[in-house]
């Protein structure tokens, strides 16, 4: 069997590839006492003294490389920073590996590098190592590894939800994915729709610095909120009930999603976090989030329960099962 686009779409097809072909062949995947690759969390950790080094890597190919709200450079920084951030870590430094196709416009590269620089300043991280190659690829590929630091045992896992927790999402969902889709296919915009790509470390740290605990956290990138919630529910062996009317979605995303038949819940975000927190802390955490510029649309969207497994959504016409997206939706209504 050959790789198809579905294998990179973040759904169950991709999960299977990762579990069977990739993880299945690796034996050394963990540092004693740390979080290893097999837990498929957003990042892994290496214990050192009373701290843990948090480590992650992300490869980026985006079409188009420039889009409303950002570009591939900004995504490369934010993607890595955000994976560290949702582990509860303070991002410190990144690597930068660029693969360029022959004929790539240097002016574009210049623009991308400026954007990388801008994003690093926003996130407060340094790029301390790098590599550049020219190769037979279709378009520019940027990989970036990152390290962060967290106090020993304080890393936030995606499997740590507790029954009775409240689920908070930090802002409007679906903006990045729809922006990319429309600009890739060359849709003429008459809208303010733009990618939400941003580093969320400041937002997350504002909650942690205020002394609150976050039981579980993810950045809902590929597969969107639906994917992240399902992963958190499955890994925590609990269920999540969310409420359709509480999910923050801009009118624009709602309208475009409705016109194309695309569920915003399944669409990628690049500047959002979803967290599971104790109910008693939830209102205060929401206050902190909404005070931050990246969290002004944050909402409590549901809660964690042991009454069912998986993710359910209360709608005006009853409950709906929110599945892990499998790529493009397949019609199911007669």
């Amino acid at each position, binding site marked *: 069997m050959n790789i198809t686009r579905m294998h990179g779409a973040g759904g169950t097809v991709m999960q299977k590839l990762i579990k069977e072909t990739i993880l299945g062949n690796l034996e050394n995947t963990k540092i004693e006492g740390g979080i290893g690759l097999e837990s498929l969390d957003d990042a892994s950790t290496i214990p050192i003294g009373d701290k843990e080094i948090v480590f992650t890597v992300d490869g980026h190919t985006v079409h188009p490389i420039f889009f409303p709200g950002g570009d591939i450079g900004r995504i490369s920084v934010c993607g890595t920073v955000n994976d560290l951030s949702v582990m509860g870590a303070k991002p410190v430094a990144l690597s930068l590996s660029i693969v360029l196709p022959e004929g790539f416009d240097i002016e574009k590269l210049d623009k991308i590098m400026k954007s990388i620089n801008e994003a690093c300043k926003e996130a407060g991280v340094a790029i301390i190592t790098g590599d550049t190659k020219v190769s037979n690829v279709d378009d520019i590929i940027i990989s970036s590894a990152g390290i962060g630091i967290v106090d020993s045992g304080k890393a936030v896992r995606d499997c740590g939800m507790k029954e009775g927790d409240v689920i908070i999402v930090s802002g409007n969902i679906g903006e990045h994915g729809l922006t990319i889709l429309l600009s890739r*296919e060359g849709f003429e915009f008459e809208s303010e729709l733009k990618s939400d790509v941003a580093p969320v470390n400041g937002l997350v740290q504002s909650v942690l610095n205020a002394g609150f605990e976050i039981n579980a956290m993810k950045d809902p990138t590929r597969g969107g909120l639906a994917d992240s919630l399902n992963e958190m529910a499955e890994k925590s062996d609990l269920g999540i009930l969310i409420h359709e009317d509480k999910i923050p979605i801009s009118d624009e995303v709602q309208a475009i999603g*409705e016109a194309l*038949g695309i569920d915003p819940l399944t669409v990628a975000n690049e500047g959002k976090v979803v967290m599971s927190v104790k109910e008693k802390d939830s209102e205060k955490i929401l206050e902190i989030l909404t005070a931050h510029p990246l969290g002004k649309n944050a909402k409590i969207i549901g809660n964690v329960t042991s009454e069912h497994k998986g993710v359910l959504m209360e709608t005006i*016409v*009853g*409950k709906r099962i929110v599945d892990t997206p499998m790529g493009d939706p*397949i019609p*199911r*209504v*007669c």
Partner: protein
Amino acid sequence: MTAKRIDVKGIVQGVGFRPFIYRIAKKNDLKGYVKNMGNYVEIVVSGKLNNIDAFLSDLKLEKPPLSKIDNISIEDIDENENLNEIYGDFTIKLSDTSKIEEEGTIPPDISICDECLKEIMDKKDRRSDYAFTACTNCGPRFTVIEKLPYDRENTSMKDFPLCKSCIEEYKNPEDRRFHAQATCCDICGPELFITDDSGKIISNDICDAVKFLEEGKILAIKGIGGTHLVCSINSDKSVLELRKRLNRPTQAFAIMSREEYLDLFSKIDENELNMIKSPKKPIVALKKNELYEKYFSEHVSNLNTIGVMLPYSGLHYLLFENTDQIAYIMTSANLPGLPMSIDNEQILEKLENIADYFLLHNRKIVNRCDDSVLKEINGKMELLRRSRGFAPEPVEVNYKKIKNNSKNILALGPELNSVACLVKNNKFYLTQYIGNTGKYETFNYLKDAVENLIKITNTNKIDAIVCDLHPSFNSTIFAKELGEKYKIPVTQVQHHESHCHSLMGDSDIFENNVTIAIDGLGYGNDGNIWGGEVFLFKNGKIERAGHLEEQIQPGADLASKYPLRMLASILNKANLNVSEIIKGYNYFSEKELKLILFQLEKNINVSKTTSTGRVLDSISALVSLCFERTYDGEPSIRLEALANEYTGEISEIEKLVEESIKIENNILDTTSLVVKSLEMLNNNEKIEKIAYFIHIAIADGLSKIAIETAKKQSIEYIGITGGVSYNKIISERIVENIKKESLKPLIHKRIPNGDGGISFGQAIGYLLNSN
């Protein structure tokens, strides 16, 4: 003296079987006993041989009307045992469940019998006006049973200990109520009460319910196996109010009326009358007559048919007492797509904003069971919904490859109109109607119904699970979970192959055949969406032999919801000026339309579909009939009603159709049919004519493919199945075409044509392909 042991299998519980045995044993001067064994009845008789013979002949010829004997096994008992002394008399022994083997059958609910009804209506009878009157010949069965054997303590009647008079009847073998598990009276049985929407009891008198209905109020009425929302049909105000509260703008309501009123508003033929009056008391879709409008309005049903049922319990008859109402709206009490509410608290909570008053009672409904629905097509009563009165009675298949099945198979069906099926030996137990399992609540109902079915059939192991090929149906995911949990193999079967298998199993004909399987949607073997298929079944193998042209379905389910999207897609394929044409309908905003066209151009979130439903939908939008589907199949159901209004020459349409049909490689070109329809519209042809045209074109096109395939293979059977085969115009036209060629049509009789028959077909398909 001779003695014999006789075991009788079949529907022999809850149908007055034991008292019947008692009577014929007495009549023939025999001694011994009869005993309920949980799933069969054991009889021991001792006496003269000729008396035993007479007894056996009575057993076969005079058995109670509701019983069904599948098998009688007779065995001699050693003469040395002095049975006459052991059995000094003939007795009815207590149930014995120690020997329960796997097979068992519970009868479906049965409508109130004439004798019970007479008692209710008799002011002097002790059961006068008592809503729950029942006897061995009538009343609830399936809906009150928790487990086998069918004894009172295993039903929800256990909450109502019998009073002295009722015990006397219950214990008297000569009485109609001997061992009638659901018997009761107003002293000992369930009680009715009326509450307001806060749950406060305001009356115990059913007359008040009738009064509220006459005043135009909406009532939730908990009946025998389910709950109805009920209102008067006399004023549109109540009907429209109910529509508003249910958010059900157009879907036709079923009504309940009395037999003597049917002729007032419907054209009912003998087939329909027999069905509507049968003890199953289903809803039958009757043709409206010319006077319909005099009694009810379009707001009850905007189709050319109306779904009607007769009262089936004492409670219902009492609603027609002391009133001049000739019918009530009687629709299942649920929000669209969700299961009907059945327990009092839930009824009050879920229907709080829908009903004004609640007519409830204190008996638990164990198994929810929606009303069954039938429609006459091709002169046969076909099942749109097989539920109350039918479930859980099994369907038997006697084809040799299936007859000897020894595996217990669980088939979980598709997603919409879901029904599951459990197979044991050659018996197929279909659950009651479940509904849209895409909804979580309904999905849970499926799980419960399967669990109950397993319980009431005494099943203790499942050997195989079958489900649909669609990867994201909840039933598919459930099947895989079950398979993993219990280490049972799971087989996925293609949706339309299941439709074909279902038709073969239904007719018990497994000869080589060609079958037309038409519906809205099923996941195809090629990963595309199918729904306008012609299959060839030859030498035990099934394959796709032809189909409708592939069209693009833009926006997945949105294209089913908004039929104008399908029209845009098909016209786009025809390279017409879609933007201008669709703009003319003034339905989509400019931006939305732009996005749809963009989606079609760039193939964003689109699927390929050969669905018949989507083509009919596109015409429904083309003629401005339906722009939004508010219930399953709405655009095409209303298009059929419109086509029925066509009064012109059929030959004219036939000629048009013949010119327009293009078939290549057994693929019917649907783009040109839609383009032709657009041309007709532009030429100011009547929309009834366009509607009729597309029906005949699809019917003739598919017939042509099927007939040619059959002839090439020297096959004599051509079947028709799938949800679109409920379309009378298409179905009857295809059958006519088949007969014209002297071929033999196969149509459904026992199993729903639509997705309610899929689980049955899945199981048949599994059995055909195993071993």
